[in-house]
């Protein structure tokens, strides 16, 4: 029987430094065993536990879309023991991967609707996966308008920069990039994400909102969405918790009776309102 604690062997193909302060890196990884690759089927929103043998594991959202073949992308911020060691890894090194874990963004509900994506800072990872998935030629017709509002503290902290500029030019997606504080070269929007959201004021009719960002951004974004007419069942958040097993057994990552690793990390705002405010 499959051992859910045993990681698959993966190799680091490439490492991209995403931000100026160099504490966010994207790892492009591929499976060592092609059977593992064939069996790895996921949708945007899910995560995997990356293993550094001898150090431990960390749960990281999958930043690549299932439409990107031959590799997976993980964008990791250096924070604790495992992520620090991962940041020291080199191209060609083998690490471990357990996944896909968690639930996905609600594509069954999103089918045929407008999609509004609101992201902040480095939490944009699984939202990138979602955008790439929706934009894929096989999928684009399944969804209507796609609006993206993404912001970071300053231009240096924006991640996936090269893709952001490509999306700006893409007619099938409406992109608004903002920073809290710009610099001399910054020519785009300046302002907090919730305020930009207010200005863009996307139509809430038949629209599903996906929100992912630091707690402070979420706190101020939710009232704006409410004012725009979004009901709580149409807003989805992706949460973070300290995790270990990733499969709903070790009892660590729960919010009320839901485990973030298993019943989440994607929750509708309606669902969260029925859960204890302990996260």
């Amino acid at each position, binding site marked *: 029987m499959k051992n859910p604690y045993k990681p698959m062997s993966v190799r680091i193909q490439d490492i991209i430094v995403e931000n100026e302060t160099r504490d966010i890196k994207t790892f492009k990884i591929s499976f060592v065993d092609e059977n593992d690759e064939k069996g790895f089927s996921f949708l945007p929103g899910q995560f995997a536990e990356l293993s550094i043998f001898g150090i431990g594991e960390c749960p990281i959202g999958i930043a690549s879309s299932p439409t990107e073949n031959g590799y997976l992308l993980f964008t990791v911020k250096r924070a604790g023991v495992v992520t620090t060691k991962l940041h020291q890894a080199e191209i060609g090194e083998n690490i471990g991967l357990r996944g896909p874990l968690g639930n996905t963004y609600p594509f069954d509900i999103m089918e045929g609707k407008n999609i509004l994506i609101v992201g902040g800072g480095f939490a944009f990872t699984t939202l990138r996966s979602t955008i790439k998935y929706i934009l894929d030629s096989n999928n684009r017709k399944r969804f209507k308008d796609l609006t993206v509002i993404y912001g970071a503290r300053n231009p240096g902290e924006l991640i996936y920069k090269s893709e952001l500029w490509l999306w700006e030019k893409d007619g099938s997606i409406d992109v608004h990039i903002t920073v809290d504080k710009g610099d001399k070269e910054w020519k785009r929007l300046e302002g907090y994400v919730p305020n930009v959201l207010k200005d863009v004021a996307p139509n809430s009719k038949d629209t599903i909102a996906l929100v992912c960002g630091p707690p402070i951004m979420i706190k101020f974004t939710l009232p704006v969405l409410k004012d725009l007419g979004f009901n709580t069942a149409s807003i989805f958040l992706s949460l973070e918790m*300290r995790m270990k097993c990733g499969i709903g057994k070790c009892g660590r990552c729960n919010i009320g009776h839901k485990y973030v690793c298993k019943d989440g990390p994607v929750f509708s705002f309606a669902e969260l309102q029925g859960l*204890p405010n*302990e996260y």
Partner: protein
Amino acid sequence: MTKDKRTDFILEKNRFEEFIRSLSEKYRIYSPSYTDTRGHFIEVDSPDKIKFNQTNSKLAVKSFFFPQVENLFVFDAETKELSDKENETTAHPIQHILFGVRPCDAFSISLLDAVFMKISPADPYYIKKRHSTMIISLACNHPRQTCFCTSVGCQPDSEKGADIIFFDLEDRFLIRPVTDTAEEILNSVRTLLGSATDCDQEKKKQLMLESKNIIHKDFEFDDLVKKLDNFNASYWNRIYEKCLGCGICTYLCPTCHCFDIADEVIESNGRRVRTWDSCMFSLFTLHASGHNPRPTQKERMRQRIMHKFNYAPKNYDQIFCVGCGRCIMYCPVNLDIRQLIKGIMEEE
């Protein structure tokens, strides 16, 4: 043979040694130890090692299936190659017998089954031990002052989680097979067993009635689950005050199953181990960012009570407490969960 058609047997106490000896030819038998200060289950290499005591073992049966330290796999620290050969077999014939498990502890195993086996993905380490072990439980004639199993859906004669249940009728045991595996095992010692008569059944019924009368029924748990839906009730502000935040209640509890996973490397030998952890510890939910959603003992105490009496019923349809009383007996500050719950039920 269906459950209704199973017959109960009688084993005279003077044949008990033979019974154990016969079984130990094919299986390894374990029994709670009351002399070993580790308070654990010990291997029975001779029948006189089995003690019939009025109390329960200090450590719960869960450590047999979910040990405090378990190697998930080993790896070479240089090459990072993994090996978990132990778990590569899928067939698990019965190899071990746990004898003398109290019904509350056997019940607790059925609760842990829900977490480790029924909820996907299943845990192969637990399954291997579970499928290769038979549980013979011993009904309680003399519940203790700290027992409260009847308040949480268990009984001194509960059969849940056990393969066979023994009833002590003073000079003989009444043996009831509960599962199919039990039938096979008992068939191998059939010659030692007699059939239970109506008189035997009457005696058993009598003893169990007396037993149940000893235990106080402190609360109705359906009401408790509903009451606890009030996450922000004011009683949480006082309930936690005496708690020291150690792990005794969680480690000794038969149904607590929180664990940690850590890597350990000694020279070139690496292993990933699973170890018990406790929601009562201050760093249990500490994020790498420094944020802790449960920063004080208030939140942690609330989590423990809610997990057992509100979240588990929602997830598994069961209260995760069997009323064994260990948390009451061993708490260094005599924090009594029955008092806590009474306090919760009495609040507006």
